[in-house]
C-alpha cells in the first residue's frame, strides 16, 4: 500500500496524543504506512477561516505543498484538518483568481500549489483503501454486546461538495466500521447533529443546550459508549459531559472512544498501552463488560 503523510493535527498531536498512539497501532496492524512532515496548523476551519479566509487558504496551501513536494497523499486523523485541507484544495482548484493570489504569496517562500495530491480522512482510508475484509480479519476480540452510538461529526461529511465521503445527513461509514468490531450500533435520532464545539467556544450557554439535545438522544438509545472520529467532538463529549450533569442534573456517564481506540481494543492491544486513563469519562465499566 502507498505511504501517506501523517497529518495528526494540533489537537491530537499536542493535546490528546493517546489518540495518535491508538491510530498508529491500528495502522501498523492493517499495513497503512505513514511518514511525518513539518506541517503547521491546518488551520482550523471554524477558527482561522472565520478570522481571515485568505490566511486560511495560504497556510493550508503551504501544508499541501509540503506533501506535494514528496508526491504523497495525506491521511488526516481529524475532521477539521481533513475539512480544511480538502476545502483549501477545492477553493484553489475552482477559483483561478484565488489560486493566482495564493500562488504569488507562496512564490515568495519558494513554493507553488499544484493540486497534485489527495487528502483523505482516516475513516475513508480504512473503509476504502484497507477495506472491510482486511479489518475484520485483524479483529481478534469481538466486542459482542457492546452498544455503541456513532458520531461521525459535521466536517467528516459536510459540505458533501468537497468532502465526498458519506451521505451528509444520513452517514453510514462509521456505523459500518464500528459494526466490523462485533459491537452493536444503536440508532439515535440526533445522529447528524453537530457536537457544538465551535459555538460552545463563543457562547457556552447555547453550546451546552445543543450538547444536551445530542446527549439526551444518545442516552435514550441505550448507548454504553460513543464512538467518534474527530478530536474536537471527542473533547466536547469527553470533557463537557460532567458540566452538563452539573448544569441540568441529568446523569450521563457515557464514555467516549476514538474509532481507532475501539479497534485497538478489538485487535487485542493492552488498554494501558493506549493511554485510556487520560480520558475524562471512565471506561472501566466498558472494559469490565468486555472482559478486557
Amino acid at each position, binding site marked *: 500500500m502507498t505511504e501517506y503523510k501523517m497529518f495528526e493535527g494540533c489537537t491530537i498531536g499536542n493535546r490528546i496524543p493517546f489518540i495518535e498512539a491508538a491510530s498508529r497501532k491500528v495502522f501498523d496492524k492493517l499495513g497503512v504506512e505513514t511518514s511525518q512532515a513539518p506541517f503547521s496548523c491546518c488551520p482550523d476551519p471554524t477558527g482561522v477561516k472565520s478570522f481571515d479566509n485568505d490566511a486560511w487558504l495560504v497556510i493550508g496551501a503551504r501544508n499541501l505543498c509540503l506533501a506535494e513536494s514528496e508526491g504523497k497523499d495525506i491521511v488526516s486523523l481529524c475532521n477539521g484538518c481533513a475539512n480544511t485541507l480538502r476545502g483549501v484544495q477545492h477553493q484553489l482548484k475552482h477559483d483561478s483568481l484565488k489560486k493566482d493570489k495564493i500562488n504569488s504569496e507562496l512564490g515568495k517562500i519558494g513554493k507553488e500549489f499544484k493540486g497534485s495530491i489527495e487528502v483523505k480522512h482516516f475513516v475513508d482510508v480504512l473503509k476504502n483503501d484497507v477495506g472491510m475484509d482486511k479489518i475484520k480479519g485483524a479483529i481478534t476480540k469481538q466486542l459482542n454486546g457492546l452498544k455503541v452510538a456513532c458520531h461521525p461529526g*459535521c466536517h467528516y461529511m459536510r459540505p458533501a461538495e468537497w468532502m465526498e465521503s458519506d451521505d451528509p445527513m444520513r452517514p453510514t461509514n462509521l456505523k459500518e466500521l464500528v459494526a466490523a468490531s462485533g459491537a452493536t450500533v444503536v440508532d439515535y435520532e440526533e445522529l447528524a447533529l453537530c457536537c457544538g464545539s465551535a459555538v460552545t467556544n463563543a457562547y457556552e450557554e447555547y453550546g451546552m443546550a445543543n450538547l444536551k439535545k445530542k446527549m439526551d438522544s444518545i442516552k435514550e438509545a441505550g448507548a454504553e459508549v460513543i464512538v467518534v472520529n474527530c478530536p474536537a467532538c471527542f473533547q466536547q463529549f469527553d470533557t463537557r459531559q460532567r458540566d452538563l450533569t452539573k448544569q441540568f442534573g441529568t446523569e450521563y456517564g457515557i464514555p467516549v472512544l476514538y474509532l481507532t481506540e475501539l479497534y485497538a481494543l478489538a485487535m487485542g492491544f493492552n488498554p494501558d498501552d493506549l493511554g485510556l486513563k487520560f480520558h475524562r469519562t471512565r471506561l472501566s465499566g466498558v472494559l469490565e463488560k468486555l472482559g478486557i
Partner: protein
Amino acid sequence: MELDFEFRKQVMDFHIGPDVIKYCYQCSRCSDNCPVTAVTTDFYTTTGYNPRSNILAALLGYKDLLLGGDDLGIWGCTVCDTCDEVCPQNIELTEIFTFLKNQSIALGKGPEFIYSQAKAVFENAKAIPSQPAIERRREQLGLPAIVAPDVNEVQTLLKNIGADKKLK
C-alpha cells in the same frame, strides 16, 4: 438603514459557485435545520441566530444591519455546514457566513477565542503549541516527536497578506 453596494458585490464574489445566492427564496430550510437557531430563537424567530435573515441581509447589502448589531447574529454559527446541505438552491451559506465573520474581524469585533487561536497560529504555526508535559507523554506512549513547522515561513505568509494587523 442603508444599502452598501460594494458589500453586496463582495458577497456575490465570495460565493465560489455561480451567483445562486440571488435565487434564495427565503424558504427557511436553513433556519429550520440550524442547531443554533433551535436553541437561541423564540417561536417567531425574531431573536437569536438566524441564517435565513443573514442571507437576505447579505444579498441586499445591509452591511450595517449585519455587522453593527449583537455579535450573536454572525458568530452564533457553529460551522456545521448543515444549511449548505439542506438548501434547495445549493447556496453555500457557510461560505457567505465566513465572509461575514471575516468582515466582523476587520472591524475588531468577534469572540475572543478566534483572536487567541489566530495569535497562537501566528506565533507558533500551531493552534495548540507544543508543551513539555505532552512531549513527555508522547514519548511514554511510544510516539515520535512532532516535526516542528517552519514558524518563519508561516509568519511571512501571514504578514504579507496583512492578517497580522487584525490580531489583538
